[in-house]
């Protein structure tokens, strides 16, 4: 019994100190951001590695998710003769939930894990240490540009995912199943609100997810043990922790934005 209690205590203490380390790490990255304006080239390079190279998976996934929503929504709504609100169903579920959440999960798998592995290997091969010994701050040269690029890329990727998803829904519903195109868009426009849905759902949620996903990925890479085992463990942790954090945060944000209490 007391062993069990002690184990719990150790776990909580370890978790708290981990949180403390991660917070300090975030502060150091944010402080390094101000130096970035003199080196915009670094940001461009990372936006390419993080954003542009994530585009294919986002485009393809978005299209398929939208098409599936169109099919499923149609087969349910057709029983009530309410297929005209299919556009609303597809758009709202994508904008409020599926767009930001799925993009963040895909991002964790595609870009987050790559960031962790890259930083972890840079540490394992002493590149970070050699940079420090050349009097170059790795927070400015390596971490802050990646963090900012990820933070910018996430809302853009979410917007693209959502837009492509709606187009996919349109393809299935209107082109394939013959739902009236006018009511597809019209009902959507009547129900989707610019500020309540799009800016809350797509913009604020994805910005929050971008912050968390990149924070976790870079922190895990930076504190990974400098061995191949350590780097692989950190990469796994990035994907798991980011997924859990995104889903938990999503519930919190949804309750704040759309909740009725």
């Amino acid at each position, binding site marked *: 019994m007391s062993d069990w209690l002690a184990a719990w205590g150790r776990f909580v203490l370890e978790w708290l100190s981990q949180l403390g380390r991660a917070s300090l790490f975030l502060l150091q990255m944010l402080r390094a951001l101000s130096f970035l304006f003199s080196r915009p080239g670094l940001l461009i390079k990372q936006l390419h590695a993080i954003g542009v190279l994530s585009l294919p998976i986002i485009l393809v996934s978005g299209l398929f998710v939208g098409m599936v929503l169109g099919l499923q929504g149609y087969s349910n709504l057709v029983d009530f003769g309410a297929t005209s609100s299919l556009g609303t169903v597809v758009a709202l579920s994508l904008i409020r939930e599926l767009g930001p959440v799925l993009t963040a999960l895909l991002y964790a798998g595609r870009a987050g894990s790559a960031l962790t592995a890259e930083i972890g*290997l840079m540490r394992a*091969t*002493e*590149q970070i*240490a*050699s*940079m*420090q*010994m*050349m*009097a*170059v*701050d790795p927070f400015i*040269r390596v971490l802050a540009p990646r963090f900012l690029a990820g933070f910018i890329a996430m809302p853009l990727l979410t917007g693209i995912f959502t837009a492509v998803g709606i187009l996919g829904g349109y393809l299935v519903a209107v082109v394939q199943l013959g739902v009236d195109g006018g009511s597809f868009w019209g009902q959507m426009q009547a129900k989707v609100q610019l500020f309540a849905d799009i800016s809350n759902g797509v913009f604020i949620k994805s910005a929050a997810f971008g912050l968390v996903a990149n924070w976790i990925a870079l922190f895990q890479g930076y504190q990974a043990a400098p061995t191949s085992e350590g780097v692989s463990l950190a990469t796994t942790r990035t994907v798991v922790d980011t997924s859990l954090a995104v889903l938990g945060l999503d519930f919190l944000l949804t309750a704040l934005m759309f909740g009725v209490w």
Partner: protein
Amino acid sequence: MSVITTRPGAAPLHDDSLVTVRHLSFSRGEHRIFRDVDLSIPRGKVTAIMGPSGTGKTTLLHLIGGQIRPDAGRIEVDGICVNELGRKDLYQLRKRMGVLFQSGALFTDLSVFDNVAFPLREHTRLSESMIRTLVLMKLEAVGLRGARALMPSQLSGGMSRRVALARAIALDPMMILYDEPFAGQDPISMSVLVQLIRTLNDALGLTSIIVSHDVKETATIADYLYLISDGQVVDHGTPEELSHSTSPWVDQFIHALPDGPMSFHYAAPPYEADLLTGTSP
């Protein structure tokens, strides 16, 4: 421990020492790595710090470079106490130090040219043509001017260490720290590196500190040797002096004997008793 008695006490104060270490103590967790160590590195010479693997030689380099701080003692580089410096002053001092890491630590996403240009671009506002001239000069010095367009993944181990050396001297430092420069090298690239370290030291007026366990190669170029074991300086002197040392420990290390004061066996209970007791591993 009783055998390690040859030359106890403080290291000699060289007439002109660039690095002095006084009463250095450092431990990692429960494990004590250095106990009251004194060292002094003469200016303009090649000094080697030698000892068996796992004795904290690399840690000593990290301490001199200010990457970690000692528990007690002082480390002075060119009269500046490294372990009391703030971040900014430390970075200023590091611009005058070059470090050659064991793995070379080249930036894998940059070409050979850009790797050597990296410190110049970060710390100077020189024009691109000026940087090109400087980079080609440094690469010529290590004999790799022709490899400037290659990526680090295309280089052999010896070549990437030479590129890292060119990068380390890019800012014309006052000293270079070499971390195991000969580990895992074939005989040819080993002798190339030995040659390079010596000629660069003399041609550029550097001070070199080599951390190594390769006795033969290191002894051929070092002006002065320190032997470290178990957190303490065991012996020091010129290679000539040490090869005639009467200490059995120094004798074992310098002549690479498999058994001696440094036992072949890791500490263990008596063999027979161990075999006959129970089932636990």
